[in-house]
């Protein structure tokens, strides 16, 4: 990580409220980084889905487990990592929600939405077990001058030590 990069991480409880908390936190960072309204929506939704995945599938809604959320803001992109304390999973084993037989499924669209809304997306085994979702969005070409007029209001993450 270079000197120009910023890093923020937070440990979340395995509870529904963590989903909104994570979304709000990442939205503030995204707005401060200059992302426009549409990209902020996509980033916020992806963070929601990543944390829902960790809450429900990874940690199986068990309150003794934690969800680890990390954000990195580099000069090129915003990187989001969501790590759970579950058993891990293979991306290739996730059913395609667009397949005819899955259209009426009541779950299984989170991974699809993160893939659709972010520029890069992968799932790797976590360093201490579980699954880690790593996804990123390129910063707007205009640098840090946001298109939604909400940039730079005290929400920038701390510089990494």
């Amino acid at each position, binding site marked *: 990580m270079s000197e120009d990069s910023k890093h923020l991480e937070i440990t979340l409880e395995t509870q529904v409220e963590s989903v909104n908390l994570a979304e709000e936190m990442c939205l503030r960072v995204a707005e401060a980084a200059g992302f426009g309204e549409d990209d902020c929506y996509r980033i916020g939704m992806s963070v929601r889905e990543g944390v829902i995945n960790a809450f429900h599938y990874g940690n199986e809604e068990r309150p003794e487990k934690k969800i680890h959320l990390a954000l990195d803001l580099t000069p090129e992109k915003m990187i989001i990592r969501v790590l759970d304390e579950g058993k891990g999973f293979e991306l290739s084993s996730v059913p395609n929600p667009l397949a005819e037989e899955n259209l009426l499924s*009541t779950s299984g669209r989170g991974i*699809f939405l993160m893939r*659709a809304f972010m520029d890069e997306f992968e799932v790797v085994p976590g360093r201490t077990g579980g699954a880690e979702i790593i996804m990123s969005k390129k910063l707007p070409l205009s640098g840090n001058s946001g298109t939604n007029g909400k940039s730079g209001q005290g929400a920038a993450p701390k510089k990494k030590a």
Partner: protein
Amino acid sequence: MALRATYREAAGVTVVDIGGRITLGEGSALLRKTIRELLEDQRTLILLNLADVDYIDSSGIGELVSAYTGVKNRGGSLKLLHLTKKVHDLLQLTKLFTVFEVYSDETSALRSYR
């Protein structure tokens, strides 16, 4: 914003006016409870007015699908009215436009149940 849902009768159809976010937790739970109450009351022709729903996540999408199949399994019909752009785009992305009947005006929607 928390989800809110009220319903009214129009031309033999129960129109459910929904506002707020349909997301994991209270939002999805309220939609589930509302549909369950309507089915218990033998109301199986249901039009969900989503004009004031500005946000749905995957949990909310799942709840909409669950409502659709639950009503259909009771011999009824659940349709959608007045999608906001975000909800419209999300249903398109997830191919659920091929599942739901979607209307942009209430009169046409009500007529479609005849």
